[in-house]
């Protein structure tokens, strides 16, 4: 059987992307260096901090631990698929308003973890939010306002007229 050596085609934020690069390259580097999607951050490169979290087929994964070869044929979503500074996603808006982050380096990864959670479980309780964010290290906020903002968002969404 003939195996394609290179040239994975990956759906990133709804677009099919092809690139002739090494299949062992971590997805995080492909996103950042090849596709110039630098919203995905790298804090450790070993799956320990969660800054590089993206969605792969709807699940939160550390993109530093996904070899490009494995991403082939899958759907990837990154922070760039959400709002932009002029038109924030409502969850992004509430994180800003509530001071849920400080330096912002962990924030794209946190957003993607929350997105994965809320897409599979629209009304999680606080314990479920904590479980979902256990893999996202934040050194600035102590997570207090992050939890507060997330729970506010969930509550408000559940009480929309």
């Amino acid at each position: 059987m003939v195996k394609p050596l290179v040239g994975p085609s990956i759906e990133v934020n709804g677009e099919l992307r092809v690139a002739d690069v090494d299949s062992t390259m971590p997805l995080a580097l492909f996103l950042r260096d090849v596709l110039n999607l630098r919203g995905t951050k790298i804090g450790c490169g070993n799956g320990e901090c969660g800054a590089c979290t993206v969605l792969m087929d709807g699940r939160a994964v550390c993109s530093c631990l996904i070899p490009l070869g494995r991403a082939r044929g899958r759907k990837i979503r990154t922070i760039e698929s959400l709002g932009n500074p002029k038109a924030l996603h409502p969850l992004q808006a509430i994180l800003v308003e509530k001071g849920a982050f400080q330096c912002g380096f962990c924030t794209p990864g946190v957003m993607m973890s929350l997105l994965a959670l809320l897409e599979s479980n629209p009304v999680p309780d606080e314990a479920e939010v904590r479980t979902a964010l256990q893999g996202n290290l934040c050194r600035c906020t102590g997570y207090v306002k992050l939890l507060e903002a997330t729970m506010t968002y969930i509550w408000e969404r559940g009480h929309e007229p």
Partner: protein
Amino acid sequence: MNREFQFVGMPRPQIEGPDKVTGRAVYTHDLTRPGMLHGAVLRSPHAHARIRQIDLSAARAMPGVAVVVVGTDFPDRRYVNAGPQYADRHAMARGKVRFVGEEVAAVAAETSAQAQAAVSAISIDYEVLPAVLDAEAAQAADAPAIHDKPGLPRNVAQESIADFGGIDAAFAAATHIVEGTFEHGIVAPVCLETNGALAVFDPQTGNMDIWAPTQAPFFVRKEVAYVLDLDPEHVRVRSVAIGGGFGGKSQSPEPIAIAAMLSKLAGRPVRILLNRQEEFLSGKSDHAKKMRVRSAVAADGTIIGRHTEFWVDNGAYTHMGPAYISAVRQRTCNLYRVGAAGFDGKLVHTNKVSGGSYRGMGAPQIIWAIETQMDEIAEKLGRDKLDYRIEVANRAGDQTPQGWNISTCALTECLAEAGRRIGWHEKKNSMPLNRGIGFAAMINPSVGLLYAEGNFACVSIDLKDDGRLRVGTQSADCGTSQNTVLAQFVAEELNLTPDQVDVLHMDTKETPADLGSAASRVTFVSGNAAIKTAKAFRAELTRRLACLWSVPADDIMFADGISSFGTDNARRIDLADAAAQVGTFRVEERYDVDMPRPDPKTGYGDYAATYGFGAQAAEVEVDPTTGHVSVLKVVVVQDIGRVINPLALDGQMHGGVVQGIGMALREEVVFDGGVPINASLITYRAPRIIDTPVIETAYIETDDPSGPYGAKAGGEHAINPTPAAIANAVAQATGKRFRKLPITAADVLCALEEERSLPIKPWIRPYNMEIATARALYPKILFPGLKKLGAAVGRKPRPANGHDYERPSDLEDALVALGRPNRKVKIMAGGTDLQVGLRQGVYAADSVVDISDLSDLKGIMIGDGVIRIGAATTISELTEHEDLLRMHPMLSDGLAKIATRQIRNVATIAGDLAQEKRCWFFRSGAQCYKAGGVSCPCYAVLGDNRHHSVMGAGRCAAPCVADAAPILTALDASVVIADYAGERRVPMTNFYRWSGETVVATNEIITAIEVPRPNVAHTQAFEKHAGWDGDFADASVAVHLAWQEDRVIKARISLGAVAPLPVRAKSAERALAGSWLTDSAVRAAAEMVIAGALPLSDNGYKCNLIVNLTERALRKNRDQRA
């Protein structure tokens, strides 16, 4: 100051918020330039060695390499850091290396991989010198000399001795003397963004542009210009987003200077980004220290004197050590009323990473020592610990023995309020078992004088064409909202909305000089400068309009962005029109903390214009089974003058508290022979979201006359009393005092179980005699001998040269790939261990075969008698499977405790079982038995072995930490293993060899796990203890019981993380068969599991832990049955 504010006191979200939350904010990591080279640094593997020779020829010849530099390529100049008298560090090592991780050589190449490869090709001949790693030992006359510093005792960088007010007389007059010795290790800042730099040198102009995450562009510019011998006018630090600071980005900029040098030599842009391990090895961490505190107390409780002796571990080079010594001293006698104060402090060099200025600058730990003693004094006096503190707290108008004049001070109110909010007086006589409440307070200079030559800030304001104002500051905003706060100040002063104000930070060409963001100084110092500049802006605008309109300047009004003269509509103009008519312009003002400096010899005298105060109360619960401390609630009450931005300030308080929890209970860099062995974000335990308690903040505003609109500093306030408050709460909960930070669960458990002896009975396993004998011979004979032998003949790690990747379409394909001759092939399932291991060099492979989506290996099939789980089924898929949860809840619950959501989403059940050992010596690259083979020693025997095996460990003490292993063993599961010829089934009890390796051969693949379906009444429970649920276990136990009526008929008990493989506790299993599980039967069976153990020096707690966890798991089984 009595006035109504528009924006001061209002919660303002961060100006940069929308950019950050969308991933658009640009950090140094995100920058590239056309033609940019990638830099990599070669670091010393030795704690202390002479560099005999460096051979760069191979590296220079490597593909893609542009330039290679070593220390002697730089001018012979040292970083100035804390002042010329302390300058002891070159930009890169020259002649000698003094800590593991010191920069020895650097390469710039076309790609990052090429740079790494070239660095590996550099060959250095070292003469290894004896190293000294302990600040106390380093002072011995025969200790190895790290530097030649004339005029000071050996390895001492600074001595700080003083007596304010007659300390000897105070002790002579004392009724009570309370004393204690306290120590702590090194805490790391752990910024999510690692250090790095992009340097762009223009050979035509000689300009050096630098983008780097630094708290202090002013110092970067000064130091880089100096060590590279460039004209400072040519060096420009540029604006960029910064991913956290906490002091970790405030000192001499090694990666920055190295990137600059590489760029200068190559004539091209060069970017260096440190990886996480490098960040731990070379970053600016806290200092370790040892403190001996003695208090002289009169019969009425007056503290008539306090003497503090302390040694600060400076590390190899002096960065912030002298300032640190001063910061520690300040906390000993200025918070509570003390009659006389004496100090004897030493800053001592060791062969460890250099200390920096991590948040709090040593205050949190000295406050812990002082506040522990305050509790003990209150106990001795029979006083309530809160009331006593309030009685002796400093008040406005006090002068301290160090000569500090306390102006505004709400310390007593802060203490009382903290007590009220935590409910002390209601709760204190009825505390539930294992609960405790602790108090602590703090004083912080607002703002401590950073440098004798001055503490100043400058701020500029530009009027732009579009009528917007741009505030310029060199104090870099690392995420603390200080840009937002400066905009608030300017808007408030000019009666604009903050939205009309932009802020440019850092840029040393576009913004005026400022010492930077450190020591909680920006709101206070730069804030005062911003107000002053705003006033100047108004004056300049008015002056220009007065000329234009030919009216007196004093008669021009300026409000809401409109300048006007009376009601004259022709003389009414907004800022954009003003810019068009009078021109754009810039004003710039300088603010100095203008006050006499403390005596340079003794340190006597005020250290700041004013002081901030705060008190905290913490409530904790201790789990007596594991020693785990849960912080339930922290109350923070602060006197920070006036609150400018409550949203930002709360954020500072919350972050400080949670960092303080880490410092109190978990965080410490662990060294082995000078090598940091927990240099990763799994093994270094920074708090995760699960650790976050309820945090309540309150502010008692004092309106300080020296502060901007009455504000004091705040950034470090909340971390400072946190470890102390927690430690005092733990003391109340346990009845034990701890004299070392962090207070780990192991420490607590040992203290709680001090009096209980366990029937460990090592003699029942005859091989323990051999092992005990070998261990006795380790220090003098076996370890040094094997280390030498292993270095000579041991298996060498294979350099990571990359590997092929295959994604086969079915199992047969995968087996073919596995069987290719002369290729080292590794199977990758989730890859969460394998890829990290390949990067760490613990695995080697020519080819990786990714089986993660082979349908033959996926899925859960519930058969009549057996549940078959495909080997490549992810942990998440297992934990989400409802039938499985019903049949074997222990499997679902237990696997949910593996790692994090992101890891569970890709990691597989077979991968968990087959993962490589997590021993921190092995993972740090030690040439140990596991890495190098039989000729090499086990580093755990003499090193820090708190996580290692307590039983069954022979040549290798690394435990099996796969959570699935004990669970599947207790469920009598089997592993199905296939090769080209067919399948075989291996019961879990035979799956691991004694050393913990699996029985899977190199040409085999695990295809499935088979778990028997329960066919009788049964119960099961899995108990695990780790730093946090997802962390690797320190001990775990799976208990599976079959029942008939109320009696156990069959028991399976399997222990995890205490031995190289999961261990069945067979004697306990036998004892339980036929048992009714009474309390005494449960405890007796639990104690049996530890029989035959042979713990190492630091892991005895695991014996208690595994017994207690077994007891708990048995009780849970019994509860389920009931």
